[in-house]
């Protein structure tokens, strides 16, 4: 059970309004992807969903309750977050990083329990990091490092996972590695995944549900096939394009048009 929704959400930094009367309702047990051009508010929306930002007005609801009414620890039991470009503390090993995922499940004086142990082992196995568990995080490749952060979220064992651009700055093979892993976590463990992706075609391939933002509001939402039609893409990104079917995954594939091709 993990439903997240936003109602009449208004939010911004200083005086600048980023999200404007935004309404959102994300399907449970699916992969939802937020897309939109730079500065449209997709990362801000994700932070608001993760309770990192307080709305000016309106509310974010987690399982039907206003998220700001819930205690921090309770929220940490229900949702995990992978921020953009997280940095591991110097000298920290993969296993230590993954163990941090058990933080919300421990109390002041409580000992490390067999369940904590089990969840960490499972997260390492799930993400294929057992062999790297005692390596220092800084020494890993970009894709491995991102997998270690996802393993932390897996150990946190929340029904809802939020990820802010988990593939940015990764090579294409590592992008696929990370997205395949998230796809497995969704399909095999039923975790609800909400992420921001800046690559529209990867979003189209992996999303069950796509939400396109424009000027702080939801401009279009639905399956990738419903959202990724040329007129809408032009409105969202200001980009002329053609959309064809991806011959491998049969999802929509956006081919941007250069100025020469248009004329």
């Amino acid at each position: 059970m993990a439903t997240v929704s936003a109602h009449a959400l208004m939010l911004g930094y200083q005086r600048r309004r980023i999200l404007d009367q935004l309404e959102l309702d994300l399907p449970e047990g699916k992969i939802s992807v937020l897309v939109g051009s730079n500065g449209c508010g997709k990362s801000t929306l994700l932070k608001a969903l993760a309770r990192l930002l307080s709305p000016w007005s309106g509310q974010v609801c987690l399982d039907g309750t206003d998220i700001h009414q819930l205690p921090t620890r309770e929220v940490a039991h229900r949702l995990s977050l992978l921020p953009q470009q997280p940095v591991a503390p110097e000298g920290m090993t993969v296993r230590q990083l993954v163990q941090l995922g058990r933080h919300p499940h421990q109390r002041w004086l409580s000992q490390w329990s067999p369940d904590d142990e089990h969840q960490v082992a499972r997260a390492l196995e799930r993400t294929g990091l057992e062999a790297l568990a005692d390596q220092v995080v800084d020494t890993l490749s970009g894709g491995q490092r991102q997998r270690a952060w996802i393993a932390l979220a897996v150990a946190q064992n929340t029904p809802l996972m939020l990820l802010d651009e988990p593939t940015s700055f990764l090579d294409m093979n590592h992008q696929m590695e990370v997205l395949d892993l998230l796809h497995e976590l969704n399909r095999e463990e039923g975790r609800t995944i909400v992420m921001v992706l800046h690559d529209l075609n990867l979003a189209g391939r992996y999303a069950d549900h796509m939400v396109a933002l424009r000027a702080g509001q939801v401009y279009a939402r639905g399956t990738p096939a419903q959202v990724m039609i040329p007129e809408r893409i032009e409105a969202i990104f200001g980009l002329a394009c053609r959309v064809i079917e991806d011959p491998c995954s049969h999802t929509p594939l956006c081919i941007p048009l250069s100025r020469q091709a248009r004329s």
Partner: protein
Amino acid sequence: MSDTTPERSVQGVGVLLSLTALLLAAMLMSLMAGAQWSTPVAVWQALFHPSGLVVEDLLIRTTRLPRTLVAVVVGAGLAVAGALMQTLTRNPLASPGIVGINAGAMFAVVVLVSMFPHAALWAWYGGALGGAALAALLVWMLALRGQSPGGPLRLVLAGAALTALFNAFSQALLVIDQQGLDTVLFWLAGAVSGRPLTHLWPLMAVTLVALMLCWPLARSMNALGTGEAMARSLGVRVYRLQGAIVVLVVALAGACVAMAGNITFVGLVVPHMARRLLPADHRLWLPGCALLGATLLLLADVVGRCVLQPREVPVGVMTALIGAPLFIVMLRRQGRRHG
């Protein structure tokens, strides 16, 4: 410290035990060292079977024992204060010395001395704590608030500016007030000797309590190491934790400066050394910093007692003399490893 990593945490506990042994050895050395070195047997006699007739007993009990205890507490306090600053700012260059907290405490002491030359000692101590808090507040306003809070560069720049400002004020006051200069010269150089324990025990108590209060926060500090957003999503109440860390740093740095004056480099260098010896876990790292800081300050004090006999080099000068080259070596080695 979990069951999953027996090797690592056992290794960590082993390191802590070795550091404890090292500290005990340094304490013994500090009790022995002086113009006339005492034997361990004489130290034992003086501590447990003192005779009022032996001068050596008196020397050990009234001079070397207090300075040994002060060095242990101050060394541990400064090192942990530095470690906490590094955790708070996620900046390996932060330490109370670097961000101006020590200078703030010094400044407050100088102001008190020049305005109320006959103020009671407790007023000086209170002043040092107040000055440390004032500096912490200013750094927080300058560097940790605003649009892109907590940038490492901003913190170091704000700290350097504050240190320069406080030191300039202190020096101006001392130039005007020659008599005050004599009183605080000892503080400016940093020293662990020459003051009776009867006056120092409240500050030692503050330091020890602050050190112990780190323990229940250590696990949350591990989570804070991954960044504020991540820590919050792990269920850490970040503002509360950061507030608690600032209060601990002010208490530790303020009390230590009040006790021993301007001792540099311990807060900066010791956390780095401890990080090399111990796994990245505050439950091991913070005790390691305390043990190592105490040991280093003791050794600096012993060396300071011996090099220029019959005179003594203030321990604050010694830590800078030892700490600066050590720090440069560490920076160079680190550069090589990453580059």
